[in-house]
């Protein structure tokens, strides 16, 4: 298990067009991430960490190079097969939490299971919420929660499908120091106790330094 390669990128390139100008957001990245790793992608904004996360998280296609996720080449896979990978194996956490405001905490967590056509076992989900300290917030709406609580709901949503790895893009960007540390502690706990692979993008050194491995990016390249 520990030797299983989850992500393998070779000479990975992603080019955006900004007007007529080509932007090399990811410019020839080689990286291998093993199961059970806790990796922090670090770099200034515009260094390409979010774009790399999008590619690795099967949210977008690469321009060139190869990218294997669980041994499958996904660099140019269609959205139809990417969505099946995502909903089965990948958990997402965003800086802005991005919860659905009209759904309760429990329903927000049910949503990925609904999309994945997985049985929604309420008691399991309640257990999950208790584990991350939200047992008393099950039927609240996101607007009734604090920022830290919202991000923990987002973590629970990402965990609901029992993902193989977690993608977190600046997960603490909108949180204060105390709440940030709580989220990082939660990540560390999940990684250590359950062996969950975590790939995190951040420009916060305090946060990044707590990962097993730090990958520094600048201008779309690993430095």
């Amino acid at each position, binding site marked *: 298990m520990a030797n299983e390669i989850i992500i393998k990128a070779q000479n990975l390139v992603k080019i955006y067009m900004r007007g007529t100008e080509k932007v090399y957001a990811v410019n020839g990245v080689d990286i291998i991430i093993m199961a059970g790793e806790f990796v922090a992608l670090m770099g200034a904004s515009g260094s390409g960490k979010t774009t790399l996360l999008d590619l690795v998280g099967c949210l977008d296609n690469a321009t060139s190079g190869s990218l294997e996720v669980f041994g499958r080449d996904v660099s140019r896979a269609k959205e139809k097969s990417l*969505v099946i990978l995502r909903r089965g194996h990948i958990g997402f956490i965003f800086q802005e939490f*991005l919860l659905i405001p009209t759904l309760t905490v429990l329903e927000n967590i049910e949503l990925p299971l609904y999309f994945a056509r997985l049985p929604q076992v309420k008691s399991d989900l309640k257990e999950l919420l208790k584990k991350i300290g939200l047992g008393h917030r099950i039927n609240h709406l996101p607007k009734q929660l604090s920022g830290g609580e919202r991000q923990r709901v987002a973590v629970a949503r990402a965990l609901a499908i029992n993902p193989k790895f977690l993608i977190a893009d600046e997960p603490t960007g909108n949180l204060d120091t105390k709440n940030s540390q709580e989220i990082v502690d939660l990540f560390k706990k999940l990684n250590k106790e359950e062996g969950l692979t975590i790939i995190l993008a951040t420009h916060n050194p305090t946060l990044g330094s707590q990962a097993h491995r730090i990958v520094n990016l600048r201008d779309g390249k690993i430095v």
Partner: protein
Amino acid sequence: MNLVSVAFRNLTRKKVRTVLTIGGVAIAIAVLVSLRGFDTGYQRSLKTDIDKMGYQLLITAKGCPYEAATLMLKGGGGLRYMEEAVYDKITSDPRIDKITPQLVSTAYDPERQDGRGGIALYMGIEKSYIELKPWSKFKSGGWFSGLDADEVIMGYEAAELEQRSVGDKIFVPGKDKVLKVAGIFERTGTQDDGMIFMPLKTAQNIFNLPGKLTGIGIKLQDLGQLSKFEEDLYNEPGIQIISLAQVKGTILNLVSSAKAMTSSVAFIAIIIAVIGVVNTILMSVFERTSEIGVMKAIGASRLDVFKIIWVETTLICVLGGAIGDVVALLGGKTVEIILKKVLPYAPNGQLVVITPDAIILSFIGAVVIGLIAGIYPAYRAASMKPIEAIRRGE
């Protein structure tokens, strides 16, 4: 997790906007159902009115046949007079099943309508008149005691209006004459209800029209002989034959051309409502760009997103349709009152008849409209790329 409840909660985000959009659909459906109800009711009432005259042909003095027929339907006066000799001449025609002479006249009664004055309608008839109308029953009293008796039989409403019972006296305004009420008819739902009947001879005397008639109603043994019969009477001087089937057809033609116009109004209302629905949903899709992006990121397929938006649109139209139907049902009476005031000729009976068919069809129509209106916004939402949707919404 239930799609309908998720969709419903999405609609409650912008309550005013949703309510206005549903209102637009409701109005369009209510207009459509009311117009259809009017169409059904008008045709039905007109048919009843004409069928309850009991005869298929009406012979009148020469003039505009439709004016004459409409006046007959309204029970109005101002008719031209013909000679009774015509009646004597054709009455023995073997093709005739029943035939009845009539003399309609009016008198201005200053006491009517609480002193504001009104027209009282009188009709001189013979026994054959009620033979043609087997549904006419006496509420009280009975037929005249003689061919020129100074007696009247009152229609149901006329008796109510004048507050008369059998045996009471009644005065014909301006004609120094007192008559006795011999009978009162039960309500028939036709123009007869407002009429005061008297023996033909009595009417001719009172109104000083000896030997005159305003019309002759004829029922043939066989309707197939109609055109031949009309042809035979064609050369008879001073008269014309009106087929009530033709009158009905002509009025319905006039009504249907008005209907074409009102239908296009309803059609435009529906198009505006659909545009409103598409606009509302499209706006809410764009407002939720990042939400839709995140749903796709966490595993929503194109079809999942399409379904969520489609259900929202359909929900708006289903609610709008239901409310529109209820409004049409409740508002039918009001529409009826307005129409009766506005229309130059309104048949007796219920003018706006909203059938279960109309309700069911309009509701199904609203659902179908919702399904169609939802396609484009749902397609736009489903086509969003997760990554772009999340970033754009930020």
